[in-house]
Protein backbone atom coordinates (compact mmCIF):
# COMPACT_ATOMS: atom_id res chain seq x y z
CA UNK A 1 0.00 0.00 0.00
CA UNK A 2 1.26 3.47 -0.82
CA UNK A 3 2.50 5.88 1.80
CA UNK A 4 -0.05 8.22 3.18
CA UNK A 5 0.46 11.51 1.42
CA UNK A 6 0.84 14.55 3.52
CA UNK A 7 -0.80 17.47 1.87
CA UNK A 8 -2.43 20.11 3.93
CA UNK A 9 -4.53 21.49 1.12
CA UNK A 10 -6.13 18.15 0.54
CA UNK A 11 -9.16 18.84 2.68
CA UNK A 12 -11.10 20.60 0.02
CA UNK A 13 -9.58 18.81 -2.92
CA UNK A 14 -11.83 15.77 -3.14
CA UNK A 15 -15.00 17.81 -3.27
CA UNK A 16 -18.11 16.27 -4.65
CA UNK A 17 -16.94 15.59 -8.17
CA UNK A 18 -17.03 11.92 -7.40
CA UNK A 19 -20.45 11.84 -5.82
CA UNK A 20 -22.17 8.63 -6.64
CA UNK A 21 -19.08 6.44 -6.63
CA UNK A 22 -19.47 3.37 -4.54
CA UNK A 23 -16.69 3.52 -2.00
CA UNK A 24 -17.40 0.49 0.10
CA UNK A 25 -19.39 -2.63 -0.62
CA UNK A 26 -20.48 -5.03 2.04
CA UNK A 27 -21.55 -8.40 0.72
CA UNK A 28 -23.42 -10.98 2.76
CA UNK A 29 -21.53 -10.13 5.91
CA UNK A 30 -21.94 -12.42 8.87
CA UNK A 31 -20.23 -11.70 12.17
CA UNK A 32 -19.66 -14.08 15.03
CA UNK A 33 -18.58 -13.98 18.64
CA UNK A 34 -17.46 -17.54 19.14
CA UNK A 35 -20.34 -19.63 17.80
CA UNK A 36 -22.89 -16.89 18.25
CA UNK A 37 -23.84 -15.23 14.98
CA UNK A 38 -24.76 -11.58 15.60
CA UNK A 39 -24.94 -10.29 12.01
CA UNK A 40 -26.88 -12.48 9.63
CA UNK A 41 -25.71 -11.66 6.15
CA UNK A 42 -25.72 -7.93 5.57
CA UNK A 43 -25.25 -6.41 2.15
CA UNK A 44 -24.96 -2.69 1.55
CA UNK A 45 -23.15 -0.18 -0.64
CA UNK A 46 -21.73 3.02 0.77
CA UNK A 47 -21.36 5.97 -1.54
CA UNK A 48 -18.30 8.18 -1.47
CA UNK A 49 -18.68 11.46 0.44
CA UNK A 50 -21.99 10.51 1.91
CA UNK A 51 -22.91 10.22 5.55
CA UNK A 52 -24.63 7.01 6.46
CA UNK A 53 -26.34 6.74 9.81
CA UNK A 54 -26.80 3.33 11.35
CA UNK A 55 -29.73 3.07 13.71
CA UNK A 56 -31.35 0.23 15.58
CA UNK A 57 -32.19 -0.93 19.08
CA UNK A 58 -29.47 -1.72 21.59
CA UNK A 59 -27.74 -5.01 20.91
CA UNK A 60 -28.84 -5.23 17.28
CA UNK A 61 -25.24 -5.29 16.06
CA UNK A 62 -24.49 -1.69 15.08
CA UNK A 63 -21.10 -1.55 16.80
CA UNK A 64 -20.22 -5.02 15.60
CA UNK A 65 -21.06 -3.98 12.06
CA UNK A 66 -18.87 -0.90 11.94
CA UNK A 67 -16.05 -2.69 13.72
CA UNK A 68 -15.99 -5.27 10.96
CA UNK A 69 -15.40 -2.46 8.46
CA UNK A 70 -12.01 -1.53 9.91
CA UNK A 71 -11.22 -5.05 11.05
CA UNK A 72 -11.34 -4.19 14.74
CA UNK A 73 -13.93 -6.91 15.25
CA UNK A 74 -11.40 -9.70 14.78
CA UNK A 75 -9.32 -8.40 17.70
CA UNK A 76 -11.97 -9.64 20.11
CA UNK A 77 -11.05 -13.13 21.08
CA UNK A 78 -13.11 -15.72 19.21
CA UNK A 79 -14.64 -13.13 16.90
CA UNK A 80 -14.71 -13.76 13.17
CA UNK A 81 -16.63 -12.87 10.05
CA UNK A 82 -17.85 -14.40 6.83
CA UNK A 83 -18.58 -12.50 3.66
CA UNK A 84 -16.83 -9.71 1.87
CA UNK A 85 -16.09 -6.06 2.44
CA UNK A 86 -14.75 -4.34 -0.64
CA UNK A 87 -13.02 -0.96 -0.49
CA UNK A 88 -12.31 0.69 -3.83
CA UNK A 89 -12.53 -2.69 -5.51
CA UNK A 90 -10.25 -4.53 -3.06
CA UNK A 91 -11.51 -7.07 -0.58
CA UNK A 92 -10.17 -5.92 2.78
CA UNK A 93 -10.58 -9.44 4.15
CA UNK A 94 -8.54 -11.01 1.40
CA UNK A 95 -5.88 -13.21 3.02
CA UNK A 96 -3.21 -11.01 1.47
CA UNK A 97 -4.66 -7.81 2.95
CA UNK A 98 -2.83 -6.45 5.96
CA UNK A 99 -5.34 -5.33 8.62
CA UNK A 100 -2.94 -2.65 9.84
CA UNK A 101 -2.88 -1.02 6.41
CA UNK A 102 -6.63 -1.45 6.02
CA UNK A 103 -7.10 0.53 9.20
CA UNK A 104 -5.00 3.38 7.84
CA UNK A 105 -7.61 3.77 5.12
CA UNK A 106 -10.54 3.49 7.49
CA UNK A 107 -10.36 5.66 10.59
CA UNK A 108 -12.58 5.44 13.62
CA UNK A 109 -13.99 7.66 16.33
CA UNK A 110 -15.31 6.00 19.47
CA UNK A 111 -18.22 6.62 21.77
CA UNK A 112 -16.05 7.68 24.66
CA UNK A 113 -13.48 10.31 23.72
CA UNK A 114 -10.12 8.58 24.10
CA UNK A 115 -7.25 10.99 23.50
CA UNK A 116 -3.96 9.53 24.73
CA UNK A 117 -3.59 10.85 28.29
CA UNK A 118 0.20 10.85 28.17
CA UNK A 119 0.44 12.97 25.03
CA UNK A 120 0.13 16.69 24.44
CA UNK A 121 -2.66 17.98 22.23
CA UNK A 122 -0.14 18.31 19.42
CA UNK A 123 1.13 14.76 19.77
CA UNK A 124 -2.37 13.42 19.97
CA UNK A 125 -3.17 14.87 16.58
CA UNK A 126 -0.08 13.44 14.94
CA UNK A 127 0.17 10.24 17.00
CA UNK A 128 -0.74 8.07 14.03
CA UNK A 129 1.58 9.87 11.64
CA UNK A 130 4.52 9.97 14.02
CA UNK A 131 4.24 6.32 14.90
CA UNK A 132 3.96 5.48 11.23
CA UNK A 133 7.31 7.14 10.81
CA UNK A 134 6.64 10.70 9.68
CA UNK A 135 9.08 12.98 11.37
CA UNK A 136 9.25 16.14 9.30
CA UNK A 137 8.57 18.81 11.91
CA UNK A 138 7.28 21.55 9.66
CA UNK A 139 4.97 19.18 7.83
CA UNK A 140 3.63 17.88 11.12
CA UNK A 141 3.12 21.45 12.36
CA UNK A 142 1.11 22.21 9.30
CA UNK A 143 -1.00 19.11 9.64
CA UNK A 144 -1.74 19.90 13.25
CA UNK A 145 -2.84 23.37 12.25
CA UNK A 146 -5.05 22.40 9.34
CA UNK A 147 -6.53 19.43 11.13
CA UNK A 148 -7.38 21.31 14.28
CA UNK A 149 -8.76 24.13 12.15
CA UNK A 150 -10.89 21.58 10.36
CA UNK A 151 -12.43 20.28 13.58
CA UNK A 152 -12.86 23.83 14.85
CA UNK A 153 -10.49 23.38 17.74
CA UNK A 154 -7.52 25.46 16.63
CA UNK A 155 -8.56 28.75 18.20
CA UNK A 156 -9.51 27.11 21.46
CA UNK A 157 -6.24 25.25 21.96
CA UNK A 158 -3.67 27.14 19.91
CA UNK A 159 -1.89 28.39 23.01
CA UNK A 160 -1.82 25.00 24.69
CA UNK A 161 -0.75 22.70 21.89
CA UNK A 162 2.31 21.50 23.72
CA UNK A 163 1.44 22.60 27.21
CA UNK A 164 -1.77 20.68 27.76
CA UNK A 165 -2.49 17.01 27.55
CA UNK A 166 -5.27 15.76 25.33
CA UNK A 167 -7.20 14.78 28.42
CA UNK A 168 -7.07 18.32 29.87
CA UNK A 169 -9.80 19.37 27.44
CA UNK A 170 -13.57 19.24 27.89
CA UNK A 171 -15.43 16.16 26.69
CA UNK A 172 -16.61 17.82 23.51
CA UNK A 173 -13.16 19.19 22.77
CA UNK A 174 -11.64 15.78 23.44
CA UNK A 175 -14.00 14.23 20.93
CA UNK A 176 -13.05 16.83 18.33
CA UNK A 177 -9.41 16.10 19.09
CA UNK A 178 -10.09 12.42 18.48
CA UNK A 179 -11.68 13.29 15.17
CA UNK A 180 -8.62 15.37 14.33
CA UNK A 181 -6.40 12.44 15.24
CA UNK A 182 -8.42 10.15 12.99
CA UNK A 183 -8.41 12.46 9.97
CA UNK A 184 -4.75 13.43 10.33
CA UNK A 185 -3.72 10.09 8.87
CA UNK A 186 -5.89 10.85 5.83
CA UNK A 187 -8.19 7.83 5.75
CA UNK A 188 -10.84 7.44 3.06
CA UNK A 189 -13.59 6.44 5.41
CA UNK A 190 -14.40 7.59 8.92
CA UNK A 191 -16.38 5.31 11.17
CA UNK A 192 -18.06 6.76 14.22
CA UNK A 193 -19.65 4.69 16.97
CA UNK A 194 -22.14 6.92 18.77
CA UNK A 195 -19.68 9.84 18.69
CA UNK A 196 -21.97 12.14 20.65
CA UNK A 197 -23.42 9.67 23.14
CA UNK A 198 -21.29 10.95 25.99
CA UNK A 199 -21.49 14.65 25.12
CA UNK A 200 -23.71 17.54 26.16
CA UNK A 201 -26.23 19.00 23.67
CA UNK A 202 -24.10 21.92 22.51
CA UNK A 203 -21.02 19.76 21.91
CA UNK A 204 -23.31 17.35 20.11
CA UNK A 205 -24.43 20.06 17.70
CA UNK A 206 -20.83 21.05 17.04
CA UNK A 207 -19.90 17.46 16.24
CA UNK A 208 -22.94 17.09 14.00
CA UNK A 209 -21.91 20.13 11.97
CA UNK A 210 -18.44 18.72 11.82
CA UNK A 211 -19.75 15.43 10.50
CA UNK A 212 -21.45 17.21 7.62
CA UNK A 213 -18.29 19.10 6.95
CA UNK A 214 -16.19 15.94 7.05
CA UNK A 215 -18.36 14.29 4.43
CA UNK A 216 -16.92 16.71 1.86
CA UNK A 217 -13.62 14.92 2.21
CA UNK A 218 -14.48 11.55 3.65
CA UNK A 219 -17.09 8.88 3.50
CA UNK A 220 -18.70 8.86 6.93
CA UNK A 221 -20.49 5.94 8.55
CA UNK A 222 -21.88 6.76 11.98
CA UNK A 223 -23.82 4.75 14.51
CA UNK A 224 -26.32 6.75 16.46
CA UNK A 225 -28.98 6.11 19.02
CA UNK A 226 -30.49 9.45 18.34
CA UNK A 227 -33.06 9.44 15.56
CA UNK A 228 -33.12 13.21 15.24
CA UNK A 229 -29.40 13.13 14.79
CA UNK A 230 -29.67 10.59 12.02
CA UNK A 231 -32.34 12.70 10.36
CA UNK A 232 -30.35 15.91 10.76
CA UNK A 233 -26.98 14.83 9.47
CA UNK A 234 -27.16 11.76 7.30
CA UNK A 235 -27.72 11.22 3.59
CA UNK A 236 -28.57 7.57 4.00
CA UNK A 237 -29.85 5.62 6.95
CA UNK A 238 -29.46 1.96 7.68
CA UNK A 239 -31.81 0.27 10.10
CA UNK A 240 -30.52 -2.87 11.77
CA UNK A 241 -32.63 -5.13 13.88
CA UNK A 242 -31.43 -8.30 15.61
CA UNK A 243 -28.48 -8.62 13.28
CA UNK A 244 -30.51 -8.18 10.10
CA UNK A 245 -30.54 -5.24 7.79
CA UNK A 246 -34.17 -4.25 7.70
CA UNK A 247 -34.05 -1.15 5.60
CA UNK A 248 -31.38 0.99 3.97
CA UNK A 249 -31.97 4.06 1.87
CA UNK A 250 -32.16 7.81 1.61
CA UNK A 251 -32.64 9.24 5.08
CA UNK A 252 -35.59 11.41 4.22
CA UNK A 253 -37.42 8.55 2.55
CA UNK A 254 -36.66 6.17 5.37
CA UNK A 255 -37.97 8.55 7.99
CA UNK A 256 -40.96 9.84 6.05
CA UNK A 257 -42.08 6.80 4.15
CA UNK A 258 -40.39 3.67 5.40
CA UNK A 259 -40.98 0.55 3.34
CA UNK A 260 -40.82 -1.78 6.25
CA UNK A 261 -43.29 -2.03 9.07
CA UNK A 262 -40.54 -2.63 11.64
CA UNK A 263 -38.70 0.49 10.54
CA UNK A 264 -41.81 2.53 10.98
CA UNK A 265 -42.41 1.13 14.42
CA UNK A 266 -38.85 1.84 15.45
CA UNK A 267 -38.62 5.41 14.17
CA UNK A 268 -41.96 6.28 15.70
CA UNK A 269 -40.58 5.10 19.00
CA UNK A 270 -42.79 2.10 19.52
CA UNK A 271 -39.87 -0.07 20.59
CA UNK A 272 -36.12 0.12 21.19
Amino acid at each position, binding site marked *: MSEIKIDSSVFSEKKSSNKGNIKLQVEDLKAFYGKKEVLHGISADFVENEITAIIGPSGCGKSTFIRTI*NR*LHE*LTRGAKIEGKIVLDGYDIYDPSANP*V*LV*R*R*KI*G*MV*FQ*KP*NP*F*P*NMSIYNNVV*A*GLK*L*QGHSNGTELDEIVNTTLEKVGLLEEVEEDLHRKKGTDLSGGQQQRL*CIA*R*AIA*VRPDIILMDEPTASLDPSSTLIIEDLMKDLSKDFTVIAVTHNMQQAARVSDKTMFLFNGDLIEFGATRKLFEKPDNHLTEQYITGRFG
Partner: protein
Amino acid sequence: MAERNQKINPEFFQSDRNLRFRLFKDKLMFYVTGLCLLLILVPIFGILFEVFINGIIGFTPDVFTKAGGSPLDPNTGLLHAMMGTFYVSVIASFFGIPLGIITGIYLEYYGKGFFSNILRVGIDSMVAIPTIITGIVVFALIVLSMGSFSVLAGGIALAFIMIPIIAKTTEEMIRLVPQLYDEAGYALGLSESQTAFSIVIPLASRGIASGVLLAFARIIGETAPLLFTAFFSQSVPNNILDVSATLTVLIYQYGISPFEAWNRLAWVAALLLMLMNLGVIFITRVIFSENGVRPWTRIAEIIKIAFGGVIGEESAKEE
Protein backbone atom coordinates in the same frame (compact mmCIF):
# COMPACT_ATOMS: atom_id res chain seq x y z
CA MET B 1 -37.41 16.77 61.32
CA ALA B 2 -38.58 20.08 59.92
CA GLU B 3 -42.14 18.85 59.66
CA ARG B 4 -42.71 18.41 63.39
CA ASN B 5 -46.01 20.21 63.51
CA GLN B 6 -47.54 18.00 60.86
CA LYS B 7 -49.17 14.68 61.43
CA ILE B 8 -46.71 11.87 61.68
CA ASN B 9 -47.40 8.69 59.82
CA PRO B 10 -46.69 5.85 62.27
CA GLU B 11 -44.67 4.08 59.61
CA PHE B 12 -42.43 7.09 59.26
CA PHE B 13 -42.00 7.13 62.98
CA GLN B 14 -41.04 3.50 62.88
CA SER B 15 -38.38 4.15 60.27
CA ASP B 16 -37.15 7.13 62.22
CA ARG B 17 -36.43 4.90 65.18
CA ASN B 18 -34.64 2.53 62.87
CA LEU B 19 -32.63 5.42 61.60
CA ARG B 20 -31.59 6.45 65.08
CA PHE B 21 -30.55 2.91 65.83
CA ARG B 22 -28.55 2.79 62.62
CA LEU B 23 -26.85 6.07 63.45
CA PHE B 24 -25.99 4.66 66.84
CA LYS B 25 -24.52 1.52 65.26
CA ASP B 26 -22.62 3.71 62.88
CA LYS B 27 -21.06 5.66 65.72
CA LEU B 28 -20.30 2.51 67.65
CA MET B 29 -18.49 1.01 64.67
CA PHE B 30 -16.55 4.20 64.24
CA TYR B 31 -15.20 4.01 67.78
CA VAL B 32 -14.55 0.26 67.62
CA THR B 33 -12.56 0.53 64.41
CA GLY B 34 -10.81 3.63 65.74
CA LEU B 35 -9.77 1.65 68.79
CA CYS B 36 -8.44 -1.16 66.62
CA LEU B 37 -6.47 1.33 64.61
CA LEU B 38 -4.97 2.69 67.81
CA LEU B 39 -4.08 -0.83 68.96
CA ILE B 40 -2.16 -1.31 65.74
CA LEU B 41 -0.58 2.14 65.63
CA VAL B 42 0.85 1.94 69.15
CA PRO B 43 3.20 -1.00 68.49
CA ILE B 44 4.09 0.38 65.07
CA PHE B 45 5.11 3.69 66.51
CA GLY B 46 6.78 1.77 69.30
CA ILE B 47 8.95 -0.08 66.81
CA LEU B 48 9.78 3.02 64.80
CA PHE B 49 10.53 4.98 67.93
CA GLU B 50 12.72 2.27 69.42
CA VAL B 51 14.75 1.90 66.23
CA PHE B 52 15.01 5.62 65.84
CA ILE B 53 16.19 6.35 69.39
CA ASN B 54 18.65 3.46 69.58
CA GLY B 55 19.95 4.24 66.13
CA ILE B 56 20.55 7.88 66.98
CA ILE B 57 22.25 6.94 70.25
CA GLY B 58 24.70 4.67 68.50
CA PHE B 59 25.38 7.03 65.64
CA THR B 60 28.88 8.42 65.02
CA PRO B 61 30.48 9.75 61.82
CA ASP B 62 32.66 6.62 61.82
CA VAL B 63 29.59 4.68 60.80
CA PHE B 64 29.92 5.95 57.25
CA THR B 65 33.70 5.85 56.93
CA LYS B 66 34.99 2.80 58.78
CA ALA B 67 34.60 -0.84 57.93
CA GLY B 68 34.06 -3.58 60.49
CA GLY B 69 36.62 -5.06 62.83
CA SER B 70 37.12 -6.40 66.27
CA PRO B 71 34.24 -5.82 68.66
CA LEU B 72 36.74 -4.34 71.07
CA ASP B 73 37.94 -1.74 68.58
CA PRO B 74 35.87 1.40 69.19
CA ASN B 75 36.65 2.80 65.72
CA THR B 76 34.62 0.49 63.55
CA GLY B 77 31.69 1.41 61.33
CA LEU B 78 29.20 0.14 58.83
CA LEU B 79 30.90 1.08 55.57
CA HIS B 80 31.47 -2.55 54.60
CA ALA B 81 27.83 -3.48 55.12
CA MET B 82 26.60 -0.37 53.36
CA MET B 83 28.78 -1.12 50.35
CA GLY B 84 27.62 -4.73 50.43
CA THR B 85 23.98 -3.68 50.46
CA PHE B 86 24.70 -1.22 47.68
CA TYR B 87 26.35 -3.89 45.53
CA VAL B 88 23.71 -6.55 46.02
CA SER B 89 20.87 -4.16 45.32
CA VAL B 90 22.51 -2.76 42.18
CA ILE B 91 23.23 -6.27 40.90
CA ALA B 92 19.72 -7.41 41.78
CA SER B 93 18.24 -4.41 39.97
CA PHE B 94 20.50 -4.89 36.98
CA PHE B 95 19.11 -8.38 36.41
CA GLY B 96 15.77 -8.18 38.15
CA ILE B 97 14.25 -4.99 36.73
CA PRO B 98 14.67 -5.66 33.01
CA LEU B 99 13.90 -9.37 33.32
CA GLY B 100 10.87 -8.68 35.48
CA ILE B 101 9.47 -6.07 33.11
CA ILE B 102 10.13 -8.18 30.02
CA THR B 103 8.50 -11.18 31.66
CA GLY B 104 5.46 -9.08 32.58
CA ILE B 105 5.12 -7.74 29.04
CA TYR B 106 5.54 -11.21 27.63
CA LEU B 107 2.87 -12.64 29.92
CA GLU B 108 0.40 -9.92 29.08
CA TYR B 109 0.88 -9.94 25.33
CA TYR B 110 1.88 -13.46 24.45
CA GLY B 111 0.90 -15.30 27.59
CA LYS B 112 -1.59 -17.65 26.01
CA GLY B 113 0.11 -20.96 25.19
CA PHE B 114 1.24 -23.91 27.24
CA PHE B 115 4.70 -22.50 27.89
CA SER B 116 3.22 -19.25 29.17
CA ASN B 117 0.93 -21.07 31.55
CA ILE B 118 3.91 -22.88 33.00
CA LEU B 119 5.74 -19.56 33.26
CA ARG B 120 2.76 -18.02 35.01
CA VAL B 121 2.49 -20.85 37.53
CA GLY B 122 6.25 -20.54 38.05
CA ILE B 123 6.03 -16.81 38.67
CA ASP B 124 3.11 -17.25 41.05
CA SER B 125 4.94 -19.85 43.07
CA MET B 126 8.14 -17.81 43.07
CA VAL B 127 6.26 -15.06 44.87
CA ALA B 128 5.19 -17.56 47.50
CA ILE B 129 8.50 -19.38 47.94
CA PRO B 130 10.14 -18.52 51.26
CA THR B 131 13.16 -16.39 50.42
CA ILE B 132 15.47 -18.62 52.41
CA ILE B 133 14.81 -21.29 49.79
CA THR B 134 15.76 -18.90 47.01
CA GLY B 135 18.95 -18.33 48.98
CA ILE B 136 19.79 -21.98 49.29
CA VAL B 137 19.11 -22.62 45.61
CA VAL B 138 21.44 -19.81 44.58
CA PHE B 139 23.95 -21.17 47.09
CA ALA B 140 23.81 -24.56 45.41
CA LEU B 141 23.90 -23.20 41.88
CA ILE B 142 26.31 -20.32 42.12
CA VAL B 143 28.22 -20.25 45.39
CA LEU B 144 29.16 -23.92 45.22
CA SER B 145 30.08 -23.83 41.55
CA MET B 146 32.12 -20.64 41.89
CA GLY B 147 33.67 -21.86 45.09
CA SER B 148 33.04 -18.80 47.18
CA PHE B 149 30.43 -16.51 48.65
CA SER B 150 30.05 -13.28 46.70
CA VAL B 151 27.96 -10.15 46.39
CA LEU B 152 27.23 -11.36 42.85
CA ALA B 153 25.52 -14.45 44.25
CA GLY B 154 23.69 -12.25 46.76
CA GLY B 155 22.51 -9.93 44.00
CA ILE B 156 21.29 -12.85 41.91
CA ALA B 157 19.36 -14.30 44.82
CA LEU B 158 17.68 -10.94 45.34
CA ALA B 159 17.00 -10.63 41.60
CA PHE B 160 15.03 -13.87 41.84
CA ILE B 161 12.90 -12.22 44.50
CA MET B 162 12.42 -9.08 42.42
CA ILE B 163 11.51 -10.74 39.13
CA PRO B 164 8.15 -12.26 40.08
CA ILE B 165 7.04 -9.12 41.91
CA ILE B 166 7.93 -6.88 38.99
CA ALA B 167 6.59 -9.30 36.40
CA LYS B 168 3.24 -9.55 38.15
CA THR B 169 2.84 -5.80 38.70
CA THR B 170 3.90 -5.10 35.11
CA GLU B 171 1.39 -7.57 33.74
CA GLU B 172 -1.32 -6.21 36.00
CA MET B 173 -0.58 -2.57 35.22
CA ILE B 174 -0.61 -3.16 31.47
CA ARG B 175 -3.88 -5.01 31.83
CA LEU B 176 -5.35 -2.08 33.74
CA VAL B 177 -4.84 0.27 30.80
CA PRO B 178 -8.34 0.60 29.37
CA GLN B 179 -9.01 -1.28 26.15
CA LEU B 180 -10.10 1.95 24.48
CA TYR B 181 -6.48 3.06 24.14
CA ASP B 182 -5.48 -0.18 22.44
CA GLU B 183 -8.38 0.27 20.08
CA ALA B 184 -7.48 3.89 19.42
CA GLY B 185 -4.00 2.74 18.41
CA TYR B 186 -5.23 -0.03 16.14
CA ALA B 187 -7.81 2.28 14.57
CA LEU B 188 -4.99 4.67 13.67
CA GLY B 189 -3.33 1.93 11.69
CA LEU B 190 -0.66 1.01 14.21
CA SER B 191 0.56 -2.54 14.51
CA GLU B 192 0.15 -4.57 17.65
CA SER B 193 3.70 -3.95 18.79
CA GLN B 194 3.53 -0.23 18.03
CA THR B 195 0.32 0.02 19.99
CA ALA B 196 1.86 -1.92 22.86
CA PHE B 197 5.18 -0.10 23.05
CA SER B 198 4.16 3.41 22.03
CA ILE B 199 0.79 3.69 23.66
CA VAL B 200 -0.22 1.07 26.18
CA ILE B 201 3.05 0.38 28.00
CA PRO B 202 3.86 4.11 28.37
CA LEU B 203 0.40 4.52 29.89
CA ALA B 204 1.26 1.77 32.36
CA SER B 205 4.74 3.12 33.08
CA ARG B 206 3.88 4.83 36.34
CA GLY B 207 2.37 1.67 37.70
CA ILE B 208 5.28 -0.40 36.45
CA ALA B 209 7.76 1.98 38.04
CA SER B 210 6.02 1.87 41.38
CA GLY B 211 6.07 -1.92 41.18
CA VAL B 212 9.81 -1.74 40.57
CA LEU B 213 10.34 0.56 43.54
CA LEU B 214 8.25 -1.62 45.81
CA ALA B 215 10.23 -4.67 44.74
CA PHE B 216 13.38 -2.71 45.50
CA ALA B 217 12.09 -1.70 48.91
CA ARG B 218 11.33 -5.35 49.50
CA ILE B 219 14.80 -6.68 48.66
CA ILE B 220 16.81 -4.17 50.66
CA GLY B 221 15.19 -5.64 53.73
CA GLU B 222 15.94 -9.27 52.85
CA THR B 223 18.24 -11.24 55.13
CA ALA B 224 17.78 -14.96 54.67
CA PRO B 225 18.92 -15.29 51.04
CA LEU B 226 22.01 -13.23 51.76
CA LEU B 227 23.16 -15.50 54.57
CA PHE B 228 23.95 -18.19 51.98
CA THR B 229 25.24 -15.97 49.24
CA ALA B 230 26.96 -12.71 50.09
CA PHE B 231 27.51 -14.11 53.56
CA PHE B 232 29.46 -11.86 55.91
CA SER B 233 32.83 -10.24 56.33
CA GLN B 234 34.38 -7.35 58.18
CA SER B 235 35.97 -5.63 55.21
CA VAL B 236 34.67 -3.58 52.33
CA PRO B 237 34.19 -5.73 49.21
CA ASN B 238 36.64 -4.89 46.44
CA ASN B 239 34.64 -6.34 43.59
CA ILE B 240 31.45 -8.24 42.94
CA LEU B 241 33.13 -11.59 43.50
CA ASP B 242 34.05 -10.71 47.07
CA VAL B 243 32.25 -12.00 50.08
CA SER B 244 30.63 -9.13 51.94
CA ALA B 245 28.49 -8.06 54.83
CA THR B 246 25.16 -6.39 54.13
CA LEU B 247 23.10 -4.26 56.49
CA THR B 248 20.52 -6.94 57.14
CA VAL B 249 22.97 -9.77 57.76
CA LEU B 250 25.03 -7.43 59.90
CA ILE B 251 21.99 -6.65 62.04
CA TYR B 252 21.59 -10.37 62.56
CA GLN B 253 25.27 -11.06 63.26
CA TYR B 254 25.89 -8.03 65.47
CA GLY B 255 22.47 -8.13 67.09
CA ILE B 256 22.91 -11.60 68.54
CA SER B 257 26.52 -11.02 69.53
CA PRO B 258 27.39 -10.45 73.20
CA PHE B 259 29.38 -7.29 72.44
CA GLU B 260 27.83 -3.99 73.29
CA ALA B 261 29.66 -2.09 70.55
CA TRP B 262 28.25 -4.48 67.97
CA ASN B 263 24.73 -4.27 69.40
CA ARG B 264 24.99 -0.51 69.14
CA LEU B 265 26.04 -0.75 65.48
CA ALA B 266 23.20 -3.17 64.79
CA TRP B 267 20.74 -0.50 65.92
CA VAL B 268 22.38 2.06 63.66
CA ALA B 269 22.18 -0.36 60.75
CA ALA B 270 18.50 -0.92 61.54
CA LEU B 271 17.90 2.82 61.46
CA LEU B 272 19.71 3.19 58.14
CA LEU B 273 17.72 0.37 56.64
CA MET B 274 14.48 1.81 57.88
CA LEU B 275 15.29 5.23 56.46
CA MET B 276 16.23 3.69 53.12
CA ASN B 277 12.96 1.83 53.01
CA LEU B 278 10.94 4.88 53.93
CA GLY B 279 12.89 6.85 51.35
CA VAL B 280 12.11 4.44 48.54
CA ILE B 281 8.47 4.29 49.50
CA PHE B 282 8.34 8.06 49.75
CA ILE B 283 9.80 8.42 46.26
CA THR B 284 7.33 5.88 44.93
CA ARG B 285 4.44 7.75 46.39
CA VAL B 286 5.47 11.28 45.53
CA ILE B 287 6.65 10.70 42.00
CA PHE B 288 4.05 8.22 40.98
CA SER B 289 0.90 9.33 42.71
CA GLU B 290 -1.74 10.95 40.56
CA ASN B 291 -1.43 14.60 39.68
CA GLY B 292 -3.46 16.93 41.78
CA VAL B 293 -3.35 14.84 44.94
CA ARG B 294 -2.89 17.00 47.99
CA PRO B 295 0.52 16.64 49.66
CA TRP B 296 -1.17 15.72 52.93
CA THR B 297 -3.14 12.95 51.36
CA ARG B 298 0.09 11.73 49.86
CA ILE B 299 1.94 11.80 53.15
CA ALA B 300 -0.90 9.96 54.88
CA GLU B 301 -0.71 7.34 52.17
CA ILE B 302 3.05 7.12 52.48
CA ILE B 303 2.80 6.55 56.20
CA LYS B 304 0.16 3.92 55.67
CA ILE B 305 2.28 2.07 53.13
CA ALA B 306 5.45 2.47 55.13
CA PHE B 307 3.88 0.99 58.22
CA GLY B 308 2.40 -1.77 56.15
CA GLY B 309 5.92 -2.46 54.90
CA VAL B 310 7.30 -2.64 58.42
CA ILE B 311 4.63 -4.98 59.70
CA GLY B 312 4.22 -7.31 56.76
CA GLU B 313 3.79 -7.37 53.05
CA GLU B 314 0.04 -6.92 53.06
CA SER B 315 0.03 -3.36 51.80
CA ALA B 316 2.77 -4.03 49.31
CA LYS B 317 0.54 -6.60 47.73
CA GLU B 318 -2.40 -4.26 47.65
CA GLU B 319 -0.44 -1.64 45.78
